[in-house]
């Protein structure tokens, strides 16, 4: 690859514009209608998941929820672009991608509900635990891909992070290790213009985040992150390259976080309502819907079917989250190491005694444990 080919385009790849009009591209083909329909279904479900989670937070059933409202094209694009043997390394904001990948919504929400730190079997759907410490998971993705390639598997790993996370040292080290070891990883950055309150302009002075790629000797590309067709095409291309041994790629998807960072955040403190409103016009659902309706592919029946599917997921989320899990205090000690140390056993006994006394005392003296 020539040096110039490592640089991203000056304008992000876009295959369907905000009005739903097809945009032709010399390099990237638009996914076919079936795939776009599947993507649309995903977007509808993703949006519903975001809305439902928001409602559950307000009802006190979720401790916290970092919404990907507005970023669903990235979330669904990632889930669809991955092959079944591939792996996803997501962040706290990627619950929609995690669920779209097949993880049970209730299990995906365990972290945000507060029952445990991660609630799903990572191997069942090939999804690593959602990572909170920023950019750290990118390195795990690199090591994971290294091991897969070493075993001769053709697994590709897609690692997600946000614009803010690109400033962390671990982002740099992950990109560099990936390039030097030439592992099958695609780094997919959702540039949603904010890291909590800090806008991209405070995060970097680079022409684009994708321009970082050449510094590692890997190709970088920019895509309109609200255009699921573009995301699928650019991501698909990078995944293919990774699978065939052409090494890692950095993709920057330009999107926007439509809601506050989490429910605990107050975004009126740092951005104007006008700015947020302007992005409504670039909504990933509206444009794909317009495109598919224009193409005659999206019928009212299909729309109703998708909406119903999304409702089913939402209902399942409500049900799961309205049930209080039976939590076992001994779990605190069960998984720290594979064999429980004498110290932890002693500590568990202390706690068990307390709980026992509390339980037996409860009938007599409500509230007191002594």
């Amino acid at each position, binding site marked *: 690859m020539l040096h110039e080919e490592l640089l991203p385009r000056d304008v992000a790849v876009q295959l369907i514009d905000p009005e739903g009009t097809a945009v032709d591209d010399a390099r990237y083909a638009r996914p076919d209608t079936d795939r776009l329909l599947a993507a649309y279904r995903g977007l509808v479900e993703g949006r519903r998941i975001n809305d439902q989670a928001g409602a559950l937070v307000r009802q006190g059933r979720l*401790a916290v929820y970092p919404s990907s409202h507005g970023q669903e094209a990235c979330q669904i694009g990632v889930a669809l672009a991955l092959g079944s043997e591939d792996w996803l390394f997501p962040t706290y904001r990627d619950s929609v991608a995690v669920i779209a990948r097949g993880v049970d919504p209730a299990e995906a929400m365990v972290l945000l509900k507060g029952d445990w730190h991660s609630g799903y079997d990572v191997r069942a759907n090939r999804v690593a635990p959602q990572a909170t410490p920023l950019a750290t998971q990118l390195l795990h993705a690199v090591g994971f891909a290294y091991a897969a390639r070493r075993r001769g598997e053709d697994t590709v790993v897609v690692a997600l992070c946000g614009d803010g996370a690109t400033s962390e040292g671990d982002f740099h080290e992950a990109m560099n290790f990936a390039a030097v070891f030439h592992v099958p990883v695609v780094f997919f950055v959702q540039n949603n213009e904010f890291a909590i309150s800090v806008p991209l302009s405070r995060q970097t002075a680079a022409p684009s985040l994708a321009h970082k790629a050449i510094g590692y000797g890997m190709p970088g590309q920019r895509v309109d992150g609200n255009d699921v067709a573009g995301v699928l095409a650019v991501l698909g291309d990078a995944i293919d390259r990774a699978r065939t041994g052409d090494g890692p790629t950095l993709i920057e998807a330009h999107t926007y976080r439509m809601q506050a960072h989490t429910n605990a955040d107050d975004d009126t403190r740092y951005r104007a309502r006008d700015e947020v409103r302007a992005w409504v016009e670039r909504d990933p659902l509206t444009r794909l819907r317009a495109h598919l309706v224009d193409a005659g592919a999206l019928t009212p029946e299909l729309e109703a079917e998708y909406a119903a599917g999304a409702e089913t997921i939402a209902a399942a989320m409500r049900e799961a989250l309205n049930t209080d899990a039976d939590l076992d205090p001994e779990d605190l000690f069960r998984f*720290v190491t594979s064999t429980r140390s004498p110290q932890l056993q002693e500590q568990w006994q202390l706690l068990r005694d307390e709980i026992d006394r509390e339980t037996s005392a409860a009938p007599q003296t409500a509230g007191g444990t002594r």
Partner: protein
Amino acid sequence: MTIAHDDIRLDAAPADVRVLSMSAALNLALADAIAADPEVVVFGEDVGALGGVFRITDGLTERFGEDRCFDTPLAESGIVGTAVGMAMNGMRPVVELQFDAFALPAFEQIVSHVAKLGNRTRGGVRMPLVIRIPFGGGIGGVEHHCDSSEAYYAHTPGLTVVSPSTPQDAYSLLRAAISSPDPVIFLEPKKLYWGKGEVDTSTTVDIGSARIAREGSDVTLLAYGASVPLALEAAETAAAEGRSVQVVDIRSLTPFDDATVTAAVRSTGRAVVIAEAPGFASVASEIQARVFERCFEYLEAPVRRVTGFDTPFAPPKLEHWYLPDVDRVLDAIDSLHWEDGA
């Protein structure tokens, strides 16, 4: 000075004293420090327009301008490393790291430079910088948001490590930390951010001094941060059961106030150390060991400790089982070989 959880009205307080939450007291300390010294700057992630995720820097950018309080790129080693360079060049940076676990990327800068540059240069370069870290649990936060990492810092020679348990100390200790020529790790107990108390801005506190938070003659509770109100509550309950419990707010983990602590425990002959962090190789074990060694002849019973378990911090819904609570403290007190056989 105890925490008043009632929202006492400002006009009810004497002229030079205000009733503030700890978060407001910290905000006031930052504002006063910025106003008092042009070299004081506050920076970190989201401390500008947002005012910090806990609003401790609320309004500072608006009031003092971008030059005095500003957001950085999202990189903790970058924040601390840049602060080191500023401190080398005459500034007094006060940086915020968002949560304990997110201070860890800066650990090399803190241990290898912040803590050592003064020593490396034979005092030629001093490090007048403050690293503020919201610490501890009790707020139902998810993983990585509730750790207590004071042991990492307290074990590192060259660092001063303090933690307030009252709005007054929050104000006075932060002012003292910012004035210090040495680097200070300033640990803010998240759980106490919203508790209120009187703050007299003319009160100063010496770094390195513990505080007798409650007098008592039967047993001494040694605590810091969010464990201090817990200790006070336990003392109250124990009093009802007829035991006179002294509470010492350690407040300054390093340097440590051996004089106050040793005298306190010698006076009662019994002690329990309380801290949220996992107990193994912790500040609590240090205090326990020191007290044992220095008060050996005076002890009626082994010094006990009540700490977090040696497990990762619990998820929100299991937190109540993890955190030291009044009952656990009372149990520890009960185990101290009382003559009445309790």
